[in-house]
């Protein structure tokens, strides 16, 4: 294993941990498809960034996308909380509408001709991250994606650690939290803002499928196995670590896209866990029947 593999793996793991930590809370709140929604709804942000900056520079794209990521969560919340629409319907309306808006913007303001979509201007590819090394004074400090993701990861960990009580109570008893005078809105909006920034930054480094996959599969897997929040967070990180490592080496072996292989691996782990839990239940019933 060379330095390049190590750099790629560190990037993958940083993203895997950030996503699986945030994903736990999203799974508990039945809002996990927010990640997928953001991957589509950033399109208008990209188009506007392109129109303003008139080039494909990814810094502008990132700012536009991040803005629309946060905007997406705000609209979803508005539909869900204020208009009492179901969470899934709110997510569905918001991201399809924003994506379609982006397509119309491309058609109207770029003469329908610019080669503009998330895939070719924003979404990165995990495999290529190691080519972009940051070297200063002859010392290797990591890759550009790593250094972009690291602050996000630290922010996620700090937020989960410092705001643990708020997040926990928000995920399980929102009404109870309100009655105790906890500022529910503050926790909700800062959490959602963090989710959108994390997903957009991760999209830029590794692409959409890996981020959306890691946001839901490891937390869902650990949700099947444990019943308390803290073990669920740890287990979710563990599952994402194992799937990143296995997926990475499998992708090298089969010579296929790394991101897809990591998601496939975590899906396989999920299926194994389902089989395990079913067998356990069946086994218990048998014992009771005896």
């Amino acid at each position: 294993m060379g330095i390049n593999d190590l750099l790629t793996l560190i990037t993958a793991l940083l993203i895997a941990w950030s996503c699986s930590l945030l994903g736990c809370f999203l799974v508990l709140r039945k809002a996990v498809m927010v990640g997928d929604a953001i991957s589509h709804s950033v399109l208008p942000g990209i188009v506007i960034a392109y129109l303003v900056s008139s080039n494909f520079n990814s810094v502008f794209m990132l700012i536009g996308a991040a803005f629309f990521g946060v905007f997406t969560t705000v609209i979803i919340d508005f539909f869900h909380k204020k208009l009492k629409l179901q969470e899934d319907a709110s997510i569905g309306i918001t991201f399809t509408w924003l994506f379609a808006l982006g397509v119309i913007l491309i058609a109207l303001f770029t003469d329908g001709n610019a080669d503009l979509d998330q895939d070719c201007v924003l979404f990165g590819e995990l495999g290529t991250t190691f080519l972009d090394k940051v070297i200063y004074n002859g010392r290797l400090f990591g890759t550009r994606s790593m250094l972009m993701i690291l602050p996000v990861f630290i922010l996620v960990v700090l937020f989960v650690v410092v705001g643990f009580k708020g997040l926990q109570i928000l995920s399980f008893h929102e009404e109870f939290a309100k009655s105790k005078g906890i500022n529910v809105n503050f926790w909700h909006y800062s959490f959602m803002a963090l989710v959108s920034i994390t997903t957009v930054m991760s999209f830029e480094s590794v692409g959409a499928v890996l981020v959306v996959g890691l946001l839901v599969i490891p937390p869902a897997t650990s949700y099947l196995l444990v019943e308390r929040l803290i073990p669920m967070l740890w287990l979710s990180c563990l599952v994402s670590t194992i799937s990143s490592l296995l997926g990475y080496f499998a992708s090298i072996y089969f010579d296929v896209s790394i991101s897809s292989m990591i998601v496939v691996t975590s899906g396989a782990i999920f299926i194994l866990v389902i089989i395990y839990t079913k067998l356990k239940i069946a086994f218990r019933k048998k014992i009771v029947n005896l």
Partner: protein
Amino acid sequence: MIKKFISLKFIFLAIFFLIVFNGCVWQPQKYGDPKLIVCTTTIIGDAVKELVKERYSVKTLMGAGIDPHMYEAKPSDIRALGNARVVVYNGLHLEGKMTDLFERMKDEKQIIAFSNGMDNNRLIKVNSHTFDPHVWFDPLLWLDGVKESANQLIKIFPKDKEFILSNYKSLENDYKRLNQDLKYQIHSIPKSQRVLITSHDAFHYFGKAFDLEVLAIQGVSTVSEPGLKNVSNLVNLIVKRKVKAIFIESSVSSKSIKAVIEGCKTKGQIVKIGGTLYSDALGDKKSGANTYIGMMRKNVKTLALALKVKYKKYVELN
């Protein structure tokens, strides 16, 4: 429990900070393989292969029949990119997000963009600040790109100067003759029938170079859906001009083309599918379109056969 959780996290974080912010001493290993040239598309790969022949190894990332928009890098491709001494790409944003990566790899590697050799005035604008990237369909414009990469390659490998130069000279001859041949071939199609209708906008340079009207159902990007108005406009035009055939592209879906054919049928005009044109990638060995010259000839042959009653035999180059 929570206390334990917090302290563990902080220890873990502290270790992480130490590892990352200390940095490690890095000897830049500029390239693993000093003879490896990596090209993005098969069309570029063909030109570079002609320039350096067997003296250097040339690897292409996007294989035969792959739409550059749909390309996903395999680990072996990326390893090749990491090892390569020279990376050659098209430019004008054909490679999408990878263009950024190439720009940033400039410190470690020699990067050549075909579009750098081309005169901006000869490029086709799609809107105020972007150009159509499908430059290879104009053989003389493409030759400028080949010239640029030959010049750059000579700078990188000075001891092969004579070799690359003589290869370029023979390539120049071939391309110029190809241009003449194709012009002759296309001009034998009656002017009113010289209309090329395909699924996506890749053929504007082709149309400009060979005096051919080009219409497409889809824009330059293969992602956006074709507009309804576009389809009905096309149908009207086909009926009015009595266009005989429309064409499919090797790397783009043909669903929208079928919609146009159905539309024409309801108006009483029978349009056939003239065949498959190669657009963003070369074909495989069997097709005979596995070189740039072969691909261009094949496209023109398909066009001429479908748009013209009789197909004139032209003098083959080889």
